[in-house]
């Protein structure tokens, strides 16, 4: 049999968790026992998450025979034998397991720069990276570019920091280059503390060499010889793959002394952080590397002047660095033209919530929110209607439908009361209570506040207490105004970005969904019927046929009624767990 067989198995964190390793070894076993030759890749996490709808449940597998790719979803080890027999041996793909159209839509509407290698090459093999053009950019930078030239390219590419604040990367590097010092540092921020965010992790796991190459180029551009990649310890796979990549680079002479045969040395280390959200903040991160508590420090000096150990430091986000090699190779114009006037290139977002296709997506800056939600995301799940898009992670804001045509970039999102942040996007539909949503995010930021400054430490707690009061039906007149005052106060007076942005969820929902707050406070009602203390369950007697399912299900014995006659819920006893609501097949139970 003379076939060129390649098998790619999703083995990112999620893939591994759902049995990727076992699937992989099942394929290996079948192939070797059949005496075949095949290239087997472990795919990176990007695809795993990129098609969450498919492989978040199970493992995604590409089988490529003579260049023809078939993608399977939901693959378990015991399914491997059939694929092997029917597809690989006999040439008949197992059609019922092949991914559907949505999968392709999801991918085709994207523009992949940072994620282009993810899922395509083996992240644990430097040669795979080199085979797709890896380290050419770094070699070019070392062979034929001066630091100033590199900085110029990055500047004119319009690349802006992907860690959230959107600071122009080229300008940051230029500062780093200009300051003179015996020691300078390059730091990659891979803390990624936003709950539910995984774009940086995907890149570190799926294309670690791109990040390292970006850092090497930065080292050359700024004249630094020491670098750190700060990764949270909760990302063991990222740590492992980055470490492998660093080791391979050292062997290849891309890191260490005399890299690329020059007399330039660059020493790169991984620092594992303890995983506090605030450690993603640049100054807190540097304190953490210094062995101190990860607590933001006032920016008397720019990091480019006095950063880590008081030495000039250029700190960028994972995605920022991963863009660099492409910019160097394809040119600043190419990158700039991908985006808008104000921001060049693409941005990775994690799309989640009530959309059909959830997962990691990469789009050019300037696409509209509508495109993202309805084209790539496939629209709202179920027959519900869109209510708001929450962007920017826990300290972002909620954007209502009227702004769906906003073109995504740093400024436009800020204008509508949200932020780009690290790129989280959560779609909310009519079943989401905006007060409750705001409370949810504030709970997170309050718990993660480093506690250093008064407004963030105590102020967010007081806001949270007011929100708790409102959602439990104890809201008072004046609470909305108090929330607004506190929100603006905290935004204006906090020391670091965490505090300054923490009120965003509250302030933006107050701006667009004030009536929901008012209903909670005045009418003691939650319009989306989410806030437990404000809803009552009752039985629609016209529909109820007295089957008794609810009565049997109720853990509190709150349902009264004889069989075959309409039941009734005793509000005094009901604990509002919603069990009956789910148990009723006839939709006879309502919550209001």
């Amino acid at each position, binding site marked *: 049999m003379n076939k060129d067989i390649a098998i790619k198995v999703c083995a990112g964190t999620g893939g591994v968790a759902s049995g990727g390793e076992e699937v992989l070894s099942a394929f290996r076993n079948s192939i070797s026992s059949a005496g075949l030759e095949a290239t087997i890749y472990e795919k990176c996490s990007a695809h795993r998450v990129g098609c969450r709808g498919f492989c978040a449940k199970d493992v995604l597998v590409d089988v490529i025979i003579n260049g023809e790719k078939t993608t399977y979803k939901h693959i378990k080890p015991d399914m491997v034998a059939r694929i092997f027999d029917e597809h690989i041996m006999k040439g008949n793909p197992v059609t019922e397991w092949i991914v559907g159209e949505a999968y392709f839509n999801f991918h085709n509407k994207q523009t992949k720069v940072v994620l282009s290698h993810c899922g395509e090459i083996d992240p644990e093999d430097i040669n795979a990276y080199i085979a797709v053009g890896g380290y050419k950019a770094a070699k070019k930078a070392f062979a034929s570019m001066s630091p100033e030239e590199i900085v110029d390219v990055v500047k004119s590419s319009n690349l802006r920091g992907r860690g959230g604040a959107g600071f122009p990367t080229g300008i940051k590097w230029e500062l780093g280059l200009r300051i003179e010092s015996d020691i300078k540092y390059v730091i990659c921020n891979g803390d990624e503390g936003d709950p539910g965010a995984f774009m940086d992790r995907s890149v570190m796991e799926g294309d670690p060499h791109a990040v390292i190459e970006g850092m090497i180029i930065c080292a050359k551009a700024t004249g630094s010889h020491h670098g750190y990649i700060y990764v949270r310890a909760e990302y063991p796979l990222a740590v492992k793959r980055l470490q492998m990549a660093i080791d391979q680079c050292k062997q290849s002479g891309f890191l260490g002394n005399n890299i690329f045969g020059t007399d330039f040395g660059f020493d790169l280390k991984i620092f594992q952080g303890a995983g*506090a959200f605030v450690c993603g903040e640049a100054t807190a991160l540097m304190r953490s590397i210094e062995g101190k*508590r990860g607590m933001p*420090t006032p920016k008397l000096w720019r990091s480019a002047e006095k950063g880590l150990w008081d030495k000039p430091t250029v700190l960028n986000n994972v995605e920022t660095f991963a863009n660099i090699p492409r910019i160097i190779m394809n040119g600043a114009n190419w990158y700039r033209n991908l985006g808008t006037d104000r921001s060049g290139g693409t941005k990775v977002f994690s799309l989640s919530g009530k959309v059909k296709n959830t997962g990691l997506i990469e789009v050019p800056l300037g696409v509209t929110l509508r495109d993202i939600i309805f084209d790539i995301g496939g629209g709202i799940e179920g027959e519900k209607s869109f209510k708001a898009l929450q962007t920017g992670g826990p300290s972002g804001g909620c954007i209502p439908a009227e702004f769906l045509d906003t073109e995504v970039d740093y400024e436009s999102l800020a204008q509508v009361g949200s932020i780009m942040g690290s790129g989280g996007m959560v779609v909310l539909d009519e079943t989401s209570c905006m007060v409750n949503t705001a409370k949810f995010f504030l709970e997170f930021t309050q718990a993660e506040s480093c506690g250093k400054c008064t407004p963030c*430490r105590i102020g967010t707690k007081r806001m949270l207490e007011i929100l708790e009061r409102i959602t439990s039906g104890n809201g008072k007149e004046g609470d909305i105004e108090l929330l607004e005052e506190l929100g603006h106060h905290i935004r204006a007076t906090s020391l670091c970005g965490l505090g300054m942005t923490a009120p965003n969820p509250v302030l933006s929902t107050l701006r667009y969904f004030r009536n929901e707050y008012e209903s909670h406070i005045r009418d003691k009602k939650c319009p989306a019927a989410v806030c437990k203390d404000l809803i009552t369950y009752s039985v629609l007697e016209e529909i109820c046929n007295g089957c008794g399912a609810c009565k049997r299900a109720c853990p509190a014995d709150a349902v009264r009624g004889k069989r075959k006659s309409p039941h009734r819920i005793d509000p005094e006893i009901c604990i509002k767990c919603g069990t009956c609501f789910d148990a009723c097949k006839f939709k006879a139970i309502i919550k209001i």
Partner: protein
Amino acid sequence: MVTLKIDGKKVTVRKLSTVLDAARKLDIPIPTLCHHPELSPFGGCRLCLIEIKGYPKPVASCTTFAKEGMEIITASPSLEKLRRTTLELILSDHPKDCMVCERAGDCKLQELAYFYGIRENRFEGERRIYTKKDNNPFVAREMEKCILCGQCVRICDEIQGVGAIDFAYRGLKTKICPPFEKDLDCEFCGQCVSVCPTGALTGKMWAHKGRQNFKEVETVCPYCGCGCNLTLHVWRNEVIRVSSKEDTINEGWLCAKGRFGYGFIHSPDRLAKPLIRTAPKEGVDLNKPQNSSRFTIHDSQFKEVSWDEALDYIAVKLKETKEKYGSDAVGGLSSARCTNEENYLFQKFIRAVIGTNNVDHCARY
């Protein structure tokens, strides 16, 4: 040097001075709770906010360098409102027991609350609770009064070089404690106590000794040769506390002995009457505890006498020795714990009165 304008007044300060430094130079008051001139900038309390022309938002003056041509406003209705709200927030997480607080009257927070007239608090809510672990004999820690200004942490690390305490936990639960929330076990210099702006850290031995109407006496430490300046707080003939001012040769820093080692002054063991031996000399029983001598030896071997009796007796004995054996058979050992004046007198007495140069002191040990 840079020149800037604060509240319309021009001031020139050294480069790398903060706006706060510049304002202080003009004697313009800006409230602060976490700033300390000897410690690294912190920027935590957010009370020192000021407006700079051209800046979109107020900034903390303690962590902003003064720049040429800056125009600064330190007080405006909106700034005062921000400060007031911040104070209200701090006070919403602070016990209201100024009545019994050791620092009442000497507390920066209380003073600011007074100036801003904060009586009601719109933000009443959950407060931090601490389990007290407080067996050390020096530092009383009532951490629910802590405002997390971090001065204690910084002084312990940056000045003392010990690092016995740090911030722990996050959010409202943030607190300052030794590792694993154990009891304090350190050099007990009390530097943290000296900088704490509130009643969170106080000296244990100060408790209930008096907060007002005490006299402050400036003097010098009786222990090592550093010559640290002490301020003795005196209430009715009792030293109730020792502190030190920032503008002294020791910059206000003290060690455990200087700050907390004053109890001997009022020790019941103090000799209070001249004593004359009544029984033959025994040896010295070194196994007896160091601080029991007055009661055990005093009565059995000595009797209390008047000064005149004691001095007459000494004069007789010294004259006798001098006459019998010559001046050089008498010696005097003076003390490094006595004053210059006393030492001068002592050697003068030995030299001019006894007539010998047999005078020395303990420099050698």
